[in-house]
């Protein structure tokens, strides 16, 4: 810096100023500046899903709660409003995308598994538009095992590219250097990519044994030895399946730096730099960072080619810390990851269950921080029937996901193993993992060159439709007018003017489910012979990441346990098949009805097709039901009028509403409480023998409402788009609004009557449990008498970004 050189001698007072000028010369400051710039420009998001199960039968519904956080502090992020969830099976070419509304960093909803789905390991991935800028590696991934009762239950294991078992070596810090004792981490994987136990020894070219090793967990382990240049080292490996192999070790460099980290002390991490070479080692720079924030930069001056730096553990947040060694020209030399557990996540405690009635269970959750202070935080709760299954669910917890796996390359097997306890053994297993799995958030080369990832996908603040208006000759029309007309019942029109590239964007109001739009485009003179192209929002990327799959046992037991139900369903379907070769949509829709008289045995049947373009159920039904009149009554819950159906000849008693097989208490019963879009069929029982099955409470007639469960193609009844012949300047668009969730029906504690016939599996699901200021929350659920054992899984996040996780089994 010539300017600095001139200024320096001028006055001592200018020293401070000249220091500022010298920033560019200092490699530590340069790296810090680059990292800070990157962190500010590309704030990273992470998504974690709490799924109630990771196995399902075709036709099932899964519940989820999504936590969308900023990577820097794990606080809920409000920058994106749309969450995408893909269900994919590359082998079968199946792919579907659902979108959900993110509110204050969380989203919750249901994922319906179509019952046409074949057996398989499906990938479930979740992301926001912004996350697409950084690639699929950063998405949330889970493997969903789907079994179809009519298919063979065994799910084929997915094959990786690997033809045989593999063993990989990772020298600590990155490379092996002549004469420097080094730790070598290794990882052995089988054909499916799962860790496999190995043992073996390291020999030089003459066959002399130098070191021996044995994997400790998930095919991972470590050994140390002193490499010497000029030797060819290889490992003779024996895999646990008996296969033996000889695998060469990485080359030995003649000179260089080796960075090692000792993470065993409770207070500090000792980073040691060793150098070997002809000349003496130069000073180097150790940069430590966590969550994209530089924690410190230390100039390391070597004495006798060696130096140790003590890093205070307390300076780091819980999570992965990245230690990188640079030369003074800011070129990276070596890197080491260490996991720092400050033991500061939320503590969850569950009281013993109280039995309030024969089947009713009540538990109290107590939430506290690391200092045992009460914490007010958001949670999701799943209670699963484990009567037949004893295996744990093997889904990564929010803690393991956000703090560990989301920042590491590749799949991590059973990540919660590393948080099981605070023993030195567990710490060593975790450190083995750190040695063998790389950091993935950015690559130094691009970062130091100032090469940014391309930002193609903005963070979405609302649902939108965007595209380009082109002339007949494909020239963009600037200053053109584009109008969006909603053809659905929430009628609205939006106008936009195209920019100089012919581009337009419509920010849409809150819309659910599928919507039909007309897009009409014209240039500024009103000529509408151009055409509209829309930005393709669907992620067409193939599934590139292979995820580990769980065992089939869970799914097998589940399907077996529910065989009765699956058989019933198949039988119902079969009966329909006998009647008519091609079952109608109505017949298909009715197949899942719980009508005690038999599905479809009713005075009148309405299906979802009759309810298209219907938003107000009470209003809709008034025009559609025969022999039923509606009376306006004050609804005590909402203090407004509600329309109550009365069947002709119902002797003045209102009709009973039966939702998915459960009679709804009359105080709760308001038809408009049931979202129209969730309804699959409505069966009307006006009188006579059909009411007997429902008893006295149905003396005024009954409406049997069955909600959607993915058994039918809900788009089948919608008029086909007549876009075979493109109309100039006009486009028909079928837009997928937010996916409307089917409410998980948790029967109230005092619910009477017949239990809902539900697939065993999830006994209880609550997506929005909050602990109060005293850190307490109450969980109350009904466990049917045949449920002898449950697993309770609670996940959550505090406002400060601390994760909470609890997995507990409970026998009744």
């Amino acid at each position, binding site marked *: 810096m010539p300017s600095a050189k001139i200024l320096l001698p001028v006055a001592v007072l200018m020293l401070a100023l000249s220091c500022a000028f010298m920033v560019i010369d200092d490699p530590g400051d340069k790296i810090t500046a680059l990292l800070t710039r990157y962190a500010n420009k590309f704030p990273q998001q992470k998504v974690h899903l709490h799924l109630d199960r990771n196995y399902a039968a075709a036709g099932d519904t899964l519940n989820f709660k999504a936590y969308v956080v900023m990577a820097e502090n794990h606080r809920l992020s409000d920058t994106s409003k749309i969450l995408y969830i893909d269900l994919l099976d590359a082998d079968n070419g199946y792919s579907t995308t659902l979108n959900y509304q993110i509110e204050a960093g969380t989203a919750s909803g249901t994922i319906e598994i179509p019952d046409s789905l074949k057996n398989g390991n499906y990938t479930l991935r979740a992301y926001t538009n912004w996350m697409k800028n950084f690639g699929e590696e950063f998405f949330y991934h889970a493997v969903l095992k789907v079994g179809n009762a009519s298919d063979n239950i065994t799910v084929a294991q997915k094959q990786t590219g690997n033809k045989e078992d593999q063993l990989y070596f990772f020298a600590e810090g990155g490379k092996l250097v002549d004469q420097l004792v080094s730790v070598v981490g290794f990882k052995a994987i089988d054909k499916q990519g799962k860790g496999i136990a190995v043992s073996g020894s390291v020999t030089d070219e003459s066959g002399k044994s130098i070191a021996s090793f044995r994997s400790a967990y998930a095919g991972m382990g470590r050994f140390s030895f002193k490499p010497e240049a000029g030797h060819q080292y290889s490992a003779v490996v024996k895999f646990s399946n008996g296969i033996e192999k000889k695998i060469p070790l990485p080359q030995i460099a003649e000179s260089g730096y080796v960075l090692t980290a000792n993470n065993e002390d409770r*207070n*500090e991490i000792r980073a040691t730099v060793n150098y070997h070479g002809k000349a003496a080692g130069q000073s180097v720079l150790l940069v430590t960072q966590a969550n994209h924030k530089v924690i410190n930069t230390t100039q390391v001056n070597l004495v006798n080619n060696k130096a140790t730096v*003590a890093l*205070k*553990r*307390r300076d780091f947040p819980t999570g992965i810390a990245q230690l990188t060694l640079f030369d003074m020209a800011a070129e990276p030399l070596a890197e080491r990851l260490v996991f720092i557990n*400050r*033991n*500061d996540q939320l503590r969850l405690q569950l009281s013993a269950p109280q039995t309030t009635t024969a089947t009713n269970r009540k538990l109290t959750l107590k939430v506290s*921080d*690391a*200092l*045992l*202070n*009460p914490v007010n935080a958001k949670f999701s709760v799943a209670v699963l029937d484990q009567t037949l299954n004893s295996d744990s669910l093997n889904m990564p917890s929010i803690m393991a996901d956000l703090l560990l796996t989301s920042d590491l390359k590749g799949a991590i097997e059973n990540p919660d193993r590393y948080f099981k306890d605070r023993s030195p053994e567990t710490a060593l297993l975790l450190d083995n993992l750190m040695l063998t799995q790389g950091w993935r958030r950015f690559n130094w080369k691009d970062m130091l060159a100032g090469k940014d990832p391309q930002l193609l996908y903005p963070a979405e603040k609302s649902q939108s439709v965007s595209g380009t208006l082109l002339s007949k000759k494909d020239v963009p029309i600037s200053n053109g007018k584009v109008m969006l007309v909603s053809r659905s019942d929430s009628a609205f029109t939006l106008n936009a003017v195209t920019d100089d590239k012919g581009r337009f964007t419509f920010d849409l109001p809150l819309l659910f489910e599928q919507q039909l739009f007309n897009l009409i485009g014209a240039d500024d003179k009103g000529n509408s012979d151009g055409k509209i192209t829309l930005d393709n929002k669907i992620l067409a990327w193939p599934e590139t990441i292979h995820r580990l799959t769980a065992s089939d046992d869970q799914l097998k037991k589940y399907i077996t346990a529910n065989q009765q139900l699956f058989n019933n369903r198949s039988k119902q379907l079969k009966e329909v098949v006998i009647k008519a070769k091609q079952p109608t949509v109505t017949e298909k829709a009715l197949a899942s009805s719980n009508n005690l008289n038999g599905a479809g045995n009713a005075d009148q049947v309405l299906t979802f097709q009759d309810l298209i373009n219907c938003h107000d159920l009470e209003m809709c039904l008034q025009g559609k039901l025969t022999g039923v009149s509606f009376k306006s009554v004050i609804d005590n819950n909402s203090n407004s009028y509600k329309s109550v159906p009365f069947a002709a000849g119902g002797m003045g008693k209102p009709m009973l509403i039966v939702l998915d097989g459960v009679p709804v208490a009359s105080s709760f019963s308001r038809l408009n409480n049931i979202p129209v879009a969730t309804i699959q069929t409505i069966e009307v029982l006006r009188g006579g023998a059909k009411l007997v099955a429902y008893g006295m409470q149905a003396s005024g007639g009954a409406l049997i409402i069955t909600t959607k469960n993915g058994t039918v193609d809900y788009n089948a009844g919608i008029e086909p788009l007549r876009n075979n012949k493109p109309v100039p300047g006009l486009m028909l668009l079928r837009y997928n609004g937010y996916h409307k969730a089917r409410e998980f029906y948790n029967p109230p504690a005092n619910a009477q009557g017949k239990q809902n016939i539900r697939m065993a599996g999830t006994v209880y699901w609550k997506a929005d449990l909050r602990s109060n200021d005293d850190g307490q929350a109450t969980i109350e659920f009904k466990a049917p008498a045949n449920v002898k054992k449950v697993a309770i899984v609670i996940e959550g996040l505090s406002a*400060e970004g601390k994760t909470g996780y609890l997995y507990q089994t409970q026998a009744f």
Partner: protein
Amino acid sequence: MQKPCQPMKTILVAFLLLMSCLRVAAQQNLYGRVADTDGAPLAGATVFISESKIGTVTDDKGNFVLRVPGSGNLKVVVSFIGYETQMQTVAPGMGANLSFVMKPVSNQLKDVIITSRSNDNWKRWGEAFTAAFIGSSEYAAHCTIANPQEIGFEFDKSTQILHAYASVPIMVQNEDLGYLVTIALVDFKLYTSSNDVDYQAYYLFNEMKGKGERQARWEENRRKVYALSLMHFTRALYDGRLKEEGFEIRRFMQVDNKEKQRVKKIYDQQYALHADSLKKVSDHMAALNKIIANRFGKDSLRYYKKVLAEKDTEIKMSELLKVDDISEKKDKVRALSFKNQLQVVYKKNKEPEEYYKFRNNTALSTENIAVRTNDISTSQLVMPPRLNPYTEMWLTNSIPVNIKENGAMDNTNLYMSGFWGWWEKIGTKLPYEYYPD
């Protein structure tokens, strides 16, 4: 001492010179020798760094070696039966060879202890001493003093001050936190009339050996105690993490009564307007009030009279203060310096049950006498809510207090009343090595 806005009785705790900056960067050995005034070596004397877990005993030749952290001033304490406790401050890199010359305790002190023992003074004063020294928290309730017979008491009737003496270290076993605390008591005064306490002592912590559930319980309790501790606050202050750690600081301020000034102005204006007529009457004020009632209405007059009866200034709380408003960090020390009085509130938890009772009983006995005389039993009173623990603190003579990275403070100029005055006792004391992670 000027103490504005004191809602209740205060307990003053002078905070000791805590100089064990325990950065783990480098360790060094401190060598030294302990001898009596004749130069004869004293074997078996306890040598330790105050408020830490670092301690040893002298060998046959009176020599000792202490392995200590390499930086920061250290308070090296020597305590031995029958001798006065000695303390030396050791600066980093200094004092590789320390020399302690121990003076025997005076015969007068010995007499006090012997007399005290024969009179069974522990029976009379033990409870008051324990409450003031060990505390009244739930943790204090599970502390035992192993050698109470070594503590002597002397009560001065004229000043109402209770003095306590010990010629040997006091040994306290804290069953809730898992520490054996060796305490060299230098000075102890309890002002029985006001319940204020003033003492000086040095502490050595030894971890008790425990396994499984017992150890887990200690660790849990240490976390709970740490959350509410002054050490937690001083560390949060040092790190500039007040908000994250849950502390809120406000300043007590004297502010002008603006409304009174406004009303005064109205009166002045009206007086000026009607000066001529007012001069003719003897009771200016009554006449002026009449004019104001005519001009602004009777309701306004009533209000103005009320405002004028108020004080010219009132005590108010400032907005939330930031770390840099009250302190400055340089060279691994944060200097805490402020005017008036600060209020520190811990927002993450409620005050402990015992303190809540203590606080409200104190308030009842001093301020709510009227309620009591009306003969309403306490059970009939609507109990006030449990609050977040709060403490008022002020500096004597405006001398700044230096806070080290581990939260230790370097002098006794910080006084406090309120929660920490009650809480910061042996029963809830943690060594400066303690960190909750």
